[in-house]
């Protein structure tokens, strides 16, 4: 150890030591933490909405009565007995809503997983292999992309006889028509990550191709995949609601779409039975909104510029608040601190 390289290294080391000493209480750092979005009010609202509705879908069916039980109190407005009133045939809307939420979430989740797996396979594997495989996969992706989704879904659902049109059939059909867009996004991202030096370095180290994909490339795509998954769930939920509403949904499960379908057939709107169609519509809207809010937070990880804009705005607000407070207490605003910060942001 007689070479001059010791001088800068020693300086580095001293710095490191001090830092290490300062943070001994810190939890071991991992790559995963970097992937978690920062907590913002919007993210909190999104998580609460999605968490609440998911809990309702999971636990609700255990607490309510039989949703298909027919009573002679048709179309009663919300009362103490029936929190959300009854349908035309006297079925409890609350019970129906709980089961329907569960059904919708089931389909949304299944489709989300299937579409993500399909898009990850075609997008990432194709882009990593390159050449013929990439050409073939992206041709296939592009063909699937231009297939008009909903009409195809309607045609397929129409062809499959009603008895065999179960939850999985609908989920499969929705997944097949919705993966292509994500696959293209993932392909573009993979093409960019694949050419980075660390991928080449791991290949030179002798890593097997599947390990390069799964261990070196995939973690860097996780935020994109997460965002695509959330998006796939939203579109599946809406697609399923649309299908069920026109009577082509799954026959063996009740979803929010089938609720709307029966409400429409039972003339809920002309009869003014708002308690019949508003709750399912609201659950769809709020769940979609919650997922979208979560998605915005994930976007910040993919595109740090968005985060900077938010932080800038926050800083500007803080400056403004400080300025007002100083004005109220009658003191002079310090010349450079608050106002100049605000100016640069604007």
């Amino acid at each position, binding site marked *: 150890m007689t070479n001059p390289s*010791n*001088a800068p290294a020693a300086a580095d080391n001293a710095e490191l030591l001090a830092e290490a000493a300062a943070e001994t209480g810190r939890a071991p*750092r991992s790559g995963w933490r*970097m992937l978690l979005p920062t907590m913002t009010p919007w993210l909190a609202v999104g998580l609460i909405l999605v968490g609440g509705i998911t809990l309702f879908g999971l636990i609700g069916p255990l607490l309510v009565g039989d949703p298909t039980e027919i009573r002679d109190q048709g179309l009663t407005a919300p009362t103490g007995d029936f929190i959300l009133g009854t349908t035309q045939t006297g079925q409890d809307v609350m019970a129906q809503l709980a089961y329907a939420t569960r059904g919708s979430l089931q389909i949304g989740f299944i489709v989300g997983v299937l579409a993500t797996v399909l898009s990850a396979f075609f997008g990432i594997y194709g882009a990593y292999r390159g050449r013929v495989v990439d050409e073939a996969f992206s041709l296939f992706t592009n063909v699937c992309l231009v297939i008009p989704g909903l009409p195809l879904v309607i045609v397929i659902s129409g062809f499959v006889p009603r008895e065999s049109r179960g939850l999985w059939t609908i989920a499969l059909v929705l997944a097949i028509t919705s993966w292509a867009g994500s696959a293209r996004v993932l392909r573009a991202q993979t093409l960019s990550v694949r050419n980075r030096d660390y991928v080449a370095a791991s290949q030179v180290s002798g890593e097997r191709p599947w390990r390069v994909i799964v261990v070196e490339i995939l*973690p860097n795509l996780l935020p994109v995949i997460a965002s695509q998954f959330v998006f796939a769930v939203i579109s599946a939920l809406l697609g399923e609601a649309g299908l069920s509403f026109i009577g082509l949904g799954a026959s063996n499960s009740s979803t929010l779409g089938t609720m709307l379908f029966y409400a429409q057939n039972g003339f809920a709107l002309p009869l003014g039975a708002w308690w019949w169609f508003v709750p399912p519509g609201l659950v769809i809207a709020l769940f979609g909104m919650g997922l979208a809010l979560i998605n915005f937070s994930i976007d910040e990880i993919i595109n740090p510029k968005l985060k900077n804009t938010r932080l800038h705005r926050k800083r500007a607000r803080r400056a403004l608040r400080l300025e007002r407070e100083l004005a109220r207490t009658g003191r002079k605003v310090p010349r450079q601190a608050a106002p100049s910060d605000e100016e640069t942001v604007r």
Partner: protein
Amino acid sequence: MTSVKITDLVKDYTLRSGLKRTRLRAVDHVSLELTPGRTVALVGESGSGKSTIAKILTRMERPTSGTVEVRLDDGTPVPNGHYRREVQMVFQDPFASLNPFHSIEHHIARPLKIHGRTQSQEDTRARVLEMLERVNLTPAEAIAPRRPHELSGGQRQRVAIARALAPGAQVLIADEPVSMLDVSIRLGVLNLLGRLQREDQLAVLYITHDLATARHFSDEIVVLYRGRVVERGPSDAVILDPHHDYTKLLALAAPDPERPGRVTSEAAVDRKAIDNSTCYDHFAGEWREAAAGAKAAVSAD
């Protein structure tokens, strides 16, 4: 100890524009020899084929023709499965060559595991720390769990060197290992490479466009121009007594405190007149035809 012999290496790339196809010859009949304990510097401008040679040596590209022979001390060729254990590479950009997602420990532990250099979890950990200490990254326990963005450029390049040496590599290809670093850090990293080379008797191929560090760091210099070797010889001879016009141009490009005023190198040597079909060989002390001359030079060694 391992030596590498590159004979008559050619690499063509096919360029496609519309229906027209043209061929770009990136490396044109290059021959080189890397021997244990010696450093060969490959000098040339961007696009002269330096990095293509590195890619072929690390088996990221296949040569169009020509051979790369890697032999152990006793003359037996290295089997395909062990190639990557013997030949490793340090990349140019330390900010890009480490995966931001993984810890430093992961980067060094992987090659150890892939090449079966460790038996157990504790053994791996001990060896990772040992590698970090070898490249002057201490305290190793504090560095190992960090992720690349927490280290400086020089520290990252040390990690990259540790990763390259982890499998027990005897041949090291350093593709401009210091060009992305601060001037103040460069000497440290180069001296580290020099020390490791002496300790392990590594055969090093040092790729650079900087003649000054090439002279400081290497025993032999090979000058590449448009894929061909235009001058080769002991490093002092090539730098102090350049024969080929292109080498003169490179030498002029390096700032020289002795030379007053500014020299615009393009004016001093007419670039259009540079002829890359001939090669000056300092070992033989004569001009040769570049493609054929390279071959003769190797057989003469």
